[in-house]
């Protein structure tokens, strides 16, 4: 990805203009009147159906839909975290290290977009809950959440100390969501149209504003020159990786709550039937698959494997956890 010169106010103004002109209204530009097609998948699966090689066709469909909901919830929650930490991780940084008003305006638009995306994915989850006749609150108990988690608090503390760990997470999640849509494109006909359209709109906006995380990291790199900032710059990505891995595993453990909703709808009944299939595998084998073969999940656990992130790590001299020891065939 071409790097943006943060001092080139004309170029940044131009990018801002394009982002504003091509912005998508998630309420009006998506056809929310179309019902969710429960006969279609949400995300393409590999031949192992994540962790369930012996899953039936019906189970594969449900797995695909549930992983789709998990991805939707992850994007929604992590973009919500970014918005909650706007003050300490963005406003305070640019007040301390102002570069030009265009970067500030671009940031305002970035957060507007993030709020919009978060609300869009949340709306989809609520629609799904309505479709399968469960309370959205009960459904969300099964899905990733970032509200009042330890991770959020640590990101906040990191930003108060002058760290930029949240921006590494933002960069990685944005890259991941772009890759997810690239993957979805190949199976468009099999995917629920509303889910596809939501990801497509998200993808288009992410492509336009994904440079912003890099801009913020560059501002910090250029101007934060005190010794502890230099140390944090080296370690921020490692912190983001650790928090991300622990958060991901914490969210995955929520699958134990499937049984609570098994009587509500066949969808949850099928989900709860997957648990025995998981028990057939050893914990070590499950963890190994999560890190190496499970699509979507392994990418969330290997933030440093994203090409864009690798370039940024090199550019900013940040360290990463040597997770390549866990890499297997994808």
């Amino acid at each position, binding site marked *: 990805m071409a790097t943006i010169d943060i001092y080139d106010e004309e170029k940044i103004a131009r990018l801002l203009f394009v982002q504003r002109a091509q912005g998508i209204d998630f309420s009006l530009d998506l056809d929310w009147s179309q019902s969710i097609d429960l006969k279609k998948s949400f995300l393409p699966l590999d031949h192992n159906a994540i962790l369930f090689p012996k899953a039936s066709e019906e189970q594969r469909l449900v797995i695909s839909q549930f992983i789709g909901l998990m991805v939707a919830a992850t994007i929604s929650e992590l973009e919500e975290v970014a918005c909650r930490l706007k003050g300490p991780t963005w406003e305070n940084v*640019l007040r*301390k*290290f*102002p570069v*030009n*008003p265009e970067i500030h305006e671009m940031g305002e638009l970035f957060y507007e977009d993030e709020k919009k995306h978060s609300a869009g994915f949340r709306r989809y989850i609520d629609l799904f809950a309505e479709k399968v006749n469960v309370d959205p609150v009960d459904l969300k108990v099964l899905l990733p959440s970032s509200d009042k988690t330890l991770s959020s608090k640590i990101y906040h503390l990191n930003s108060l100390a002058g760290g930029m760990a949240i921006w590494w997470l933002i960069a990685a999640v944005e890259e991941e969501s772009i890759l997810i849509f690239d993957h979805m494109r190949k199976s468009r006909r099999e995917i629920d149209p509303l889910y596809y359209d939501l990801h497509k709109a998200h993808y288009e906006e992410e492509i336009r504003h994904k440079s912003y995380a890099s801009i913020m990291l560059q501002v910090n790199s250029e101007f934060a020159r005190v010794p502890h900032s230099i140390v944090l710059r080296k370690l921020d990505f490692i912190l983001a990786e650790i928090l991300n891995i622990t958060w991901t595993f914490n969210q995955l453990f929520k699958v134990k709550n499937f049984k609570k909703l098994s009587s509500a709808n066949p969808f949850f009944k099928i989900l709860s039937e997957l648990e025995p299939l998981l028990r057939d595998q050893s914990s070590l084998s499950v963890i190994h698959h999560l890190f190496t073969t499970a699509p979507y999940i392994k990418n969330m656990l290997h933030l440093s494997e994203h090409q864009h992130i690798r370039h940024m790590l090199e550019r900013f001299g940040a360290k990463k956890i040597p997770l390549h020891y866990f890499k297997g065939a994808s």
Partner: protein
Amino acid sequence: MYCIDSISRNGEVFHYIDVGSSNQNASLVILLHGFPDNAFGWNLQITTLKDHFHVIAPFMPGTLNRHTVPSERLKTEELKKDLFEVLNKVRVSQTQRVYILGHDLGAFLGESFAKDLGQDIKGIIFLNGMGLEQFVSRKFKLTQWFKSYYAFLFQLAFVRALVYEVLPDYFLKKAYDHSIVPLHDEIRNNDNRVLSTIPLYKHLFRDALKFIRKKPGRLTIPALFLWGKDDAFLNIPNLDEVDQFYATGTVRVLDGGHWIMRSRFDQVNRIILKTLNQWEKTS
């Protein structure tokens, strides 16, 4: 070549470049150079601004002609009186809009002048410089103390003499090298005339003491801070600092050093022109 005019006050001549726009209603832009520099240091901006504005670029006493300037003449109050005389001479009417651009020490003078003129000044642009009160507000910033070490050395008469009379070329080279002025830039041909305002540091130090305990005053004049990010002498102002002194202050940081209007003149000129035009519309 520029038209260089002058005023005379109490036996001392104060020179200034006067480049008038053909439009008699054009607003006035006053360019105040810093140290070690003279009004010719603004030539890259004058070339652009003269087509849109009436441009005045004063020479600080001694920087044009080789004559000894009495130290008292370099007090801020005296320099402001000179500027008032120039303004009264060149201004076509009391309603003509006036803008100030100040670099380095010129910014100290410009800000003080703007305070005195009040609503007559419609905007002020600081290039790697700021008002004295704002500078004093940095009294607890260790990095600023380190960067400003020379200002303390210039309080000593023998140091001033050493710089001005014994080692001018060495000092000028060091100053321009630290400021990332391009090697081919014509200001590197400056001689010790541009050092004649060195006693300004003595007067500014005394003026600064007035602001140590003073509560900051906030100007309503719109202000733009244009800064080379690698300024070896002054820290880039942050927005909290700017907000203390200006109701409408903007900071723009460019890739360059202390003489940003030389090393990035294209970008600087573009920003200055755009800013002045915006202020023209709103004032």
